């Protein structure tokens, strides 16, 4: 992509801006912390902007989710450190609609990686191989994550 700076920015915003709300929601669902999700989304967009000249132009949404979700996984250590500093160390809960509380709780008992995998699969329809590419793990790992997530959610939905 060869563009002058203003045109480059316009092109960037036009291409990826529309995906920002969806990325925030996805990151909120994965990290279960509204503020952290907003921070991660902004960091993801900053990194996307820096890498914009290398974007292949095919799937901006998948590209952003790749960056954002990988940042979310990396966020774990940083959050652990902060959690020790902030009293109690518990995550700040996201405000949820009452009808979603059961599912929210069930999702909360999954590992972050499992939540990301099940959302990418069940909501977005990505295949195991595609999820593996997005999250940067082997397809067999994704298969294991999906299996555990579905088994857990199935039990939770049945018991509810």
């Amino acid at each position, binding site marked *: 992509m060869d563009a002058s700076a203003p045109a480059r920015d316009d092109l960037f915003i036009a291409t990826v801006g529309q995906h920002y709300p969806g990325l925030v929601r996805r990151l909120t669902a994965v990290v279960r912390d509204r503020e952290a999700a907003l921070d991660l989304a902004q960091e993801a967009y900053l990194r996307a902007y820096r890498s914009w000249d290398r974007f292949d132009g095919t799937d901006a949404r998948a590209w952003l989710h790749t960056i954002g979700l990988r940042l979310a996984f990396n966020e774990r250590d940083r959050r652990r450190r902060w959690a020790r500093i902030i009293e109690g160390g518990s995550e700040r809960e*996201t405000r949820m609609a009452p009808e979603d509380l059961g599912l929210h709780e069930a999702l909360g008992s999954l590992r972050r990686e499992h939540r990301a995998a099940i959302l990418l699969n069940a909501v977005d329809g990505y*295949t195991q191989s595609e999820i593996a590419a997005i999250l940067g793990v082997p397809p067999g790992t994704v298969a294991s994550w999906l299996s555990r997530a579905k088994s857990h959610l*199935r039990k939770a939905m049945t018991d509810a």
Partner: protein
Amino acid sequence: MHDDQFERDLAQRLRAYEARIPDDEAPLPGTRVARRPPWAAFIGVGALGVVASGILALVLVSAPRDAIGEASPSASASIGAPSPSATHAPTPAESPVPTASTSETPTATTLPPAPLAGVAWGSAVAGGHEGFVRRITAEGDQFYALGALGDDAVIWSSGDGRSWDVATLPFPASWEREAPVFISASNLVASDGRLVAIGTVGALDNLNVVIWESTDGVSWREIDTGAFMAAAYSVLDVTAGPGGLVVVTHHYAGGTGSAWRSTDGGHTWTEHRPPGESVEAAAVVGTGAGYLIAGSTGADEMDTGGSPRIWGSDDGSAWTPLEIEGGDGEGRVNQLTVDGSGRWVAVGTLNGRAVAWRSEDGISWTIAADFRSDGPDTRGAFRLVGIPDGFLALDLSDPIVGWISGDGRGWTSSDQPMPTGLAGRAGWGTGIARISDTVVVVGEDYGPDGAGFGWFTWVGTIQR
């Protein structure tokens, strides 16, 4: 509830759940961005960063490339050297984090001594933030780490695990570089005075096997393997034995595992599938007397529910399931190896636990040890290596835990997680290999700043 109905309900509920997540600070879906969104405030800073990192990258690329730890005797590039590719187009599979300007300077990080009895571990050595290592193996007097760097499959080689040289493998002739293509070297074996490396190239589900050969480990050329290239799909392990080269393979999309043999050094291959329903083959080991395959049968398409299996063959063409304790349970044999005394050990999972099997003859296998149970997180992602007096095993999950055994029955683990990574934080391992009394582990973590990906090597000396 039937599976299909459950999956539809789950998808519907998850979509509704995610859609109702408060969205007060983000533009509504489907609306055009009319103002600068929160992240746009960073653009000015980002632009400056791009310029600054570009200048620094130019400086680094122009600088001499030194080997990590010690000066390399070779003129070729070493671990940690910036990628030669400056026009790499990222794919969704690529880490978006690394930049050559900040992450490729080789550094040695001093870590506290590891408490694993029997091995004295040295300092972690940073490999870099670009690329990744999928496996490490040893042939002759050289360690070989296999992976990718930029748009190329590469093989790092080292005699001591501390100073590494890197060789770039030719890009497969049947693929276009312009497309976002995943490529990596993943396996290596010595055969008839040559090195044979096997890797993967492709995108999403369209993956092919690539095989290269070399007589010196420096210059490599691709072998045209004909139908094997597409049919084998993904090679998980390779070995050499009395019947030639044998690989175990896996199809991602609803497929199963299989085994292939080459009697001409990797040029032509024939399939010899082990018997069983839904075979999954995880590893293969060849000796002077034959071959063993570790894996499972009966797993569903989600790779769950299978039972552990080990198959044996004299020549790699006909496979026989061997007697294994717990063969009716749920699990998989992931790795197997033989020590200097000819005793066999395998590791894997059985009914949700990580276990070791032991065999005196390689034919009859009994459960020898129960490593631990971590509940739903038990993945049995072990790597195993035989040592002259026993076995070493690494639980590759985060954090890495090391185990050592003299006989395969009694295993001693570190009381605390083994120190790993570039900044002393937890990481995860990708492989272990041994030459004589030197053991090398490769692993990955989030890098020195905790915000990216990095990989490291870790050298240990077996203590007697």
